[in-house]
């Protein structure tokens, strides 16, 4: 939640509407 | 070429070896966001034209710009996320009070993130070892 809040406030909310979400599951090593 | 500024952000972090935290590149982020806005608006125009006038020949260009938008998004997310990993490691290396020189390299949101991280870690450590809690950031080396 902390990380999501950070990403949203710094960058994601300033991006185009269809690009404002990043799946943090992608940060987990595959 | 699109996405040049975005890859510069990544290179900047890659050059900062061994987890050091360079200054937050607010200007770089702003430029990438501006490029994303321009690409999106151009695509909106072309999508509308493709729909209303049957210009299916615009589809490759729309796709091209969409790839650039995704690339910029990825670079920004990775840049910010990697900085958080470096900031997180600072808690373990320096303790809960960071040197001023490092704090100067952080933006306000990163300082806030660090404060929240400290609280999460403290809550977790209090939950260990019965009533007293356990400071897992101490004794990082095994005893002799």
């Amino acid at each position, binding site marked *: 939640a902390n990380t999501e809040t950070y990403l949203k406030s710094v960058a994601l909310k300033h991006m185009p509407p269809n690009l404002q979400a990043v799946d943090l599951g*992608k*940060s987990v*090593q*595959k | *070429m699109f996405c040049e500024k975005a*890859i510069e952000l*990544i*290179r900047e*972090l*890659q050059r900062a070896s*061994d*987890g050091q935290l360079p200054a937050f590149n607010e200007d770089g982020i702003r430029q990438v966001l501006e490029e994303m806005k321009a690409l999106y608006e*151009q695509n909106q125009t*072309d999508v509308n034209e493709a729909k209303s006038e049957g210009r299916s*020949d*615009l589809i*490759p*260009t729309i*796709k*091209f710009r*969409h*790839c*650039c938008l*995704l*690339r910029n998004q*990825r*670079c920004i*997310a*990775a840049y910010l*996320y*990697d900085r958080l*990993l*470096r900031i*997180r*490691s*600072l808690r*373990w*290396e320096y303790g809960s009070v960071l040197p001023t020189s490092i704090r100067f390299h952080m933006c306000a949101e990163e300082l806030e993130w660090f404060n929240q991280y400290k609280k999460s870690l403290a809550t977790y450590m209090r939950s260990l070892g019965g009533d007293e809690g356990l400071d897992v950031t101490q004794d990082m*080396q*095994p*005893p*002799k």
Partner: protein
Amino acid sequence: TQSYLPVPPGVGMEENFLSLDDILLSQEKLPTRTECVFPRLGFVEKTSDTRDIPEGTKMEMPLWLAKGLYDNKRRLVSVEQPKIYRQGWRTVFSADPNVVDLHKMGPYYYGLGSQLLHFDSPENPEIAQTVLQTYIGRFRRIMDSSQNAYNEDTSALVERLDVLERSLFRTGQIGLNDFQRWEKGQAS
């Protein structure tokens, strides 16, 4: 710092979305050809009358863009193999993989070779096999040199290694140094 654990690169043909290494790998350029017109993107030829990229334009395109545009059914771009992955060089690698300067010819020889497999080509099985056998053929020397170079300048040992191999060498050195510290009673 030991506590900094960056998002690692993906394995094989996979990329990790937030990995800095994978982002830099995907910035590598591939020789491509446009298979249709790209209207209104004309930055390639500033002097041309139209602002379009014409069909049949040859250009060096970053991997991330080539992957994004590549589609088997709807041909927007076609991708050529870089020289290092073609038959001539594959023969060199099969003769002796240790002679090649993979930093100069790469530096992402294994990573880019793996990513090339996303683009359909009848040579893909041979490319995959060459990349794998090259790694196997060079691994032993990298491991040996990383375990025998203690407290010395290693620049000559790594200068001909690709990015993955340098990472491997570093891992070997960390293990060696940790072991030496433990032997000297400095690990507590």
